């Protein structure tokens, strides 16, 4: 990359742009109770939220992997009418306000929802106010990140390996499992990490659909929101945990993220 001297105006605006992102972080760091940091993070409410968030975000990533990789494969390999529309619908949660997602989930899978009613009467399954509901909300907002990343990986991979396997007599499923999947493993990993990070930060859909109960549905972002009013130190430390995780994900994913999009 050739380095240039920027025009003054561009540089000035860029500096304001950087400050816009850096200053909130500085504000958070300046207010952090460093002396008692460990104490705040090991309070019962912090531990409960940390543990639940790990469970929910990992479960959401698991669901996203099981459903998202096949979906990405279909998008990348099968031409069917309305594919762009379907893809747009399934990536909608990336830009949809999460609260709207939560409301939609409520009207679909809530106790009085279109399908939730059937789930309740036929199987006795109720999703709102349960950890499963929190996983559903997190999966809803996070899975598109995995699907898009994996699809990009599938489109950019060298398909000659698949062709070779096919000519040697391997069936479609065998080719997918033994050739395609190993080749796109880096994309799957990148997608899973992005998906996990998004699931970890989920707030709007969770509080709308799953509610807020410590140990059941109160994930880290919800705990931050609630604690801010009474225990700001806990809220700040939990925020820093989320910040550190997000930063680590971006640093690790830097190249891959930019390549995928």
């Amino acid at each position, binding site marked *: 990359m050739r380095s240039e*001297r920027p025009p*003054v*105006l561009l*540089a*000035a*605006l860029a*500096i*304001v742009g950087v400050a816009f992102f850096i200053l909130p972080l500085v504000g958070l760091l300046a207010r952090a109770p460093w002396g008692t940091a460990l104490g705040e993070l090991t309070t019962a409410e912090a531990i409960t939220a940390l543990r639940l968030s790990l469970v929910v975000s990992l479960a959401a990533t698991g669901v996203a992997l099981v459903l998202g990789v096949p979906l990405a494969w279909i998008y990348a390999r099968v031409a069917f009418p309305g594919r762009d529309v379907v893809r747009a619908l399934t990536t909608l949660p990336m830009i949809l306000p999460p609260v709207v997602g939560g409301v939609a989930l*409520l009207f679909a899978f*809530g*106790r*009085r929802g279109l399908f939730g009613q059937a789930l309740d009467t036929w199987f006795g399954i109720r999703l*709102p*106010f349960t950890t499963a509901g929190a996983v559903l909300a997190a999966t809803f907002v996070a899975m598109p990140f995995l699907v898009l990343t994996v699809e990009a990986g599938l489109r950019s991979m060298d398909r000659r390996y698949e062709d070779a396997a096919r000519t040697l007599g391997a069936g479609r499923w065998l080719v997918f499992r033994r050739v395609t999947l190993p080749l796109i493993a880096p994309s799957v990993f990148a997608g899973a990490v992005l998906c996990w990070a998004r699931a970890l930060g989920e707030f709007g859909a969770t*509080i709308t659909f*799953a*509610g*807020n*109960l*410590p140990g*059941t*549905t*109160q994930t880290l972002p919800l705990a931050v*929101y*609630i604690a*801010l*009013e*009474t225990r*700001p130190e806990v809220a700040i430390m939990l925020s820093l945990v989320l910040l550190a995780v997000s930063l680590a994900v971006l640093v690790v994913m830097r190249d891959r993220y930019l390549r995928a999009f």
Partner: protein
Amino acid sequence: MRGPIAILIAVALLLGACVSAIPTDSPQIKELTVFAAASLTDGFTKAGDEFAKSTVRVRLTFNFGSSSTLATQITNGAPADVLASADEANVQKIVDAKLADGVPTPFATNRLEIAVGVGNPKKIASLADLGRPDVILVVAAPTVPAGKYALEALAKAGVTAKPVSQEVDVRAVLNKVSLGEADAGIVYVTDVKSAGTRVTGVDIPEQHQVVARYPIAVVKDSRNAALAHRFVDYLVSPAGQLVLAEFGFSKP
């Protein structure tokens, strides 16, 4: 060396431009920013309209939320002119932070009620029924006034209930009941009234009641302090009390 200095000057100018771009008081319409407890949503919207009609040109902007959220926002510098809280503790927070102009004025009281689904399908008759395992109960978070009062009421009635969610404010509790996700929620009398036909109310007897006292305080540094005090005066005037009574609030 010219480059970096020029950049710094440009940044300084830009920041200066941002600061001076903040609109100064228009001589025409005065703005009053009212931070008010979620339970005041309907009452204050109407009271605000009436107040605006009765006085010089004023436009009220409301920020409704849990009283604790609002107090936190104000102590962190949110540009509110008044804070109306559903409890005394949260107004006391801004008094303690030396952010109140004068003493808080009590302007209303409220009582608790159990909100249940339309027609009361779970046959909930009292707080004791909220402890039943087949009743899905939602309350407000214990950090917000409505949640605190709900716990007090349950304790007075000697009921051990397991709420499935602690919502961020009392309106969220009401929504969960009116959407049918929860069987019951502990809210204010005024919330049941404002929900109209979307929920049914179950009375809480006097001995288990908790009275919510609503104070209002003018925020120091309010750019419209005089107008803010007039809004407070209006709320405690017979006209203001009449509007609040219409929504189910009682006298302070």
